[in-house]
């Protein structure tokens, strides 16, 4: 089912491994198998999307990687063994998850503040990060005064202000309108190309995953598992021209086919789509 065009991206192959999931499974106390024997290698500098229907365990996988949850079976092998320092992980939730009483500036300050860095000492990093997400001038606004897209920008700035090696994103743009989502997609890619961090991006949008990633890992539900992987060979930088190109359309079609197969592989159970 993987066409000729969709081979492993060579650039990704030569990059050193950052994290290897080996036979990772998660069973919840209510007996539900959220993840079953996942093998996955994440390389330095990857923009890897976990794509799948609801219930396929993609969010669970992300929480395991973040260390917010521990696997029932298998191991997460961080390069050099042991778990990555938490300072090296940035996390962006589906909702902006900001402190409603704190200003934009103080929200971005939070991760540094928790590490004992004073407001004055953190200021240059915060100002720089806010500029990167195009929020200069909104330092003193509180979240409720911002639009959904701007709140998400704050959330990304907060995750990136510690300069993490890995950015984990859990359907961050799912609640946004399409125009805002495209804009944030572009800005995120720009940030990623400049800073060369690794991204694990959970989404249920084929179009979003293909546009952003160099690797799309398609997952299937009941039990949650890795179904297949696609390498998206299109070169970066990707912009609005790429979004309307026939190449993009073809890649989306391929990813979509794989996703349909993944959904159908959950035989005999009702799938409610998304």
């Amino acid at each position, binding site marked *: 089912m993987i066409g000729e065009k969709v081979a492993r991206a060579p650039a990704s192959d030569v990059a050193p491994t950052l994290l290897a999931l080996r036979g990772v499974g998660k069973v919840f106390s209510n007996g539900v198998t959220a993840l079953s024997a996942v093998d996955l290698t994440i390389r330095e500098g990857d923009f890897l999307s976990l794509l799948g229907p609801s219930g396929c365990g993609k969010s669970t996988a992300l929480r395991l990687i*973040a260390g*917010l949850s521990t696997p029932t079976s298998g191991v997460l092998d961080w390069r050099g063994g042991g778990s990555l320092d938490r*300072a090296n992980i940035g996390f962006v939730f589906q*909702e902006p998850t900001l*402190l*409603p*009483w704190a200003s934009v500036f103080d929200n971005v300050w939070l991760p540094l503040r*928790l590490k004992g860095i004073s407001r004055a000492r953190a200021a240059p990093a915060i100002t720089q990060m806010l500029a990167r997400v195009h929020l200069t001038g909104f330092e003193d606004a*509180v979240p*409720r005064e911002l639009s959904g897209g701007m709140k998400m920008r704050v959330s990304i700035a907060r995750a990136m202000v510690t300069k993490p090696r890995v950015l984990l994103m859990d359907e961050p743009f799912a609640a946004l309108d399409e125009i805002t989502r495209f804009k944030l997609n572009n800005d995120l890619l720009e940030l990623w190309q400049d800073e060369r961090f690794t991204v694990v991006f959970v989404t249920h949008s084929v179009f979003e995953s293909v546009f952003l990633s160099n690797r799309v890992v398609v997952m299937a539900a009941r039990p949650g598992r890795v179904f297949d992987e696609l390498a998206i060979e299109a070169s970066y930088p990707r912009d609005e021209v790429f979004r309307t190109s026939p190449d993009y359309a073809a890649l989306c079609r391929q990813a979509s086919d794989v996703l349909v197969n993944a959904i159908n592989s959950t035989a005999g159970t009702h799938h409610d789509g998304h």
Partner: protein
Amino acid sequence: MTVIDEQVLQLDPEEARRVRQEQFERIGRWVLPLAIMILAICLWDRICVWNEIPQYILPRPGVVLQTLFNDAGLLFSSLLVTLRITFLSLVLAVIGGVGLSVLFTQSKWVEMSFFPFAIVLQVTPIVAIFPLINIYVNNQTTKLLLCAWIVAFFPILSNTTLGLNSVDRNLRDLFKLNGATRWQQLRYLRLPAAMPYFLGGLKIAGGLSLIGAVVAEFVAGTTGQSSGLASRIIEAGYRLNAPRLFAALFLISLTGILIFLVLSLISHLILRRWHESALKQER
């Protein structure tokens, strides 16, 4: 005036009606209760005159006002005594309520063990407990304080506990991811998140601490040990001095209203920028 200006001001009938409605409501919010109040006072005055009710049963409003001025020294010094108890018990209720709720949220075990006792303390009528307090506590002020505190601390405890526990799950994960200590989580996340709940509890507790203080004085006053407003009421009742009774009652009500307004203002000032409850409605 230019054509454009006229167009801007030209509202369709529905919008014009809505604007009028809003203006009426804004004025009516103050004028209506005030008018009813004045009407009721006038009616009260007339009833006294028409029925020739003697002053020791129902004094005319003017007489009450007169008494308020004549007995000002006595009444206001009593008010000060009641206010002191009220204010101190509210401060203690805040310290006790917030302190206990923080303790409760630090450990589920502590909460499970002690919360039922707080409820027992709350549901037992304070008037029934007072004789016991009277036996065990000697100091008059301590006695009254303890009473008012028991009445006032529970809304703060229960509301703040609720607030500390209703922190967004993702925010909690965020703090965990960033390696926040227990103290940091309390200081930067739980306490600010609990603020609207705490302020809600504080508004209730403010009124309750006044009620607690007055009730405690009443019970203590029957044994002639108190000098607060409640004892003035009892005294005036014995002497059939109805004007002074009304004047004291008026002062207590006024105090309650003032406490509520001040606490509402504090609440508004703290929450106005971020909390739904304090936001102006936008269409």
